[in-house]
């Protein structure tokens, strides 16, 4: 189990497995910064297929810069997007 301290720069795994994945496609492959750990929760990917979701997975709040997500972003350079992502989708940069 990997731990990510607040401030850790991460990249979201760029992977496209079949199933109930709670990591939206638009965020995969992008870099952001961990802002906090939200806890540990049963893994929704295995819960969705009738299993127990164990072992539990760490859930992190990750902040992305909008300008990094969308090349044509029209808003302010300050704008951000926060997303809750399970640990097995995060790679330390």
């Amino acid at each position, binding site marked *: 189990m990997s731990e990510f301290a607040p401030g850790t720069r991460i990249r979201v795994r760029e992977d496209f497995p079949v199933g109930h994945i709670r990591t939206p496609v*638009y965020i995969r492959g992008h870099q952001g910064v961990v802002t906090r750990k939200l806890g540990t929760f049963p893994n929704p990917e295995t819960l969705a297929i009738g299993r127990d979701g164990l072992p539990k997975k760490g859930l992190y709040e990750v902040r992305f810069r909008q300008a990094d997500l969308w090349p044509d972003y029209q*808003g302010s350079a300050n704008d951000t997007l926060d997303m809750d992502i399970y640990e097995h989708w995060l790679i330390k940069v």
Partner: protein
Amino acid sequence: MQEHTHDHDHDHGHDHDHDHGADETAPHAPPQPDEKIHSYYQVLGLALKELLVEKGVITPDEIRKAIEFRDSITPATGAKIVARAWTDPAYKARLLADGSEAIREFGLDMGGTHLVVVENTPQTHNVIVCTLCSCYPRNVLGLPPSWYKQREYRARVVREPRAVLAEFGTQLPGNVEVRVHDSTADMRYLVLPMQPKGTEGKSAEQLEALISRDSMIGVALPSAG
């Protein structure tokens, strides 16, 4: 109840002891035929419900009570929480530290999810979406508005939030950070809007009226009164 100072017959819609006379037979609009065609998943849901009732797993009254309870939670519930946070700094601190725990003081429970309250400040404006489905803080705001569940809002608010906010009538200066929260997991988000200037002396009850559903989703600002 208001004192009755008149003596003519009419329909009050509440209990009283005088005679209604002809009012009871007043014409009503004719009933509309129910032409609703159920979708595949609605039929599946109804079949499941009927089976669960038939097998004695749940009773129709339990289903009715669950719907009644669900419908009893409305944006007015969320407004009470926000107004309390505006008028009680210690409560606000508890709410921001642990939303799920703090709403217990209102007799509310997040069930299997967790409430995260995000505070708007002069520097940061928060807005909530669920791009994967329609996660929404139902236990404090009730059922989501239909636009919240539609693809247009969900797809656009993450990539052009300022344009979407402008369509809701909300213009934010460029130096304010717009922070979109895409609720992808077990957290449910509630925006704590900024208290409008000039409302400082108002009571929590007066403030509740200024706090709309949309201001707690983050697509609008609370009314200044």
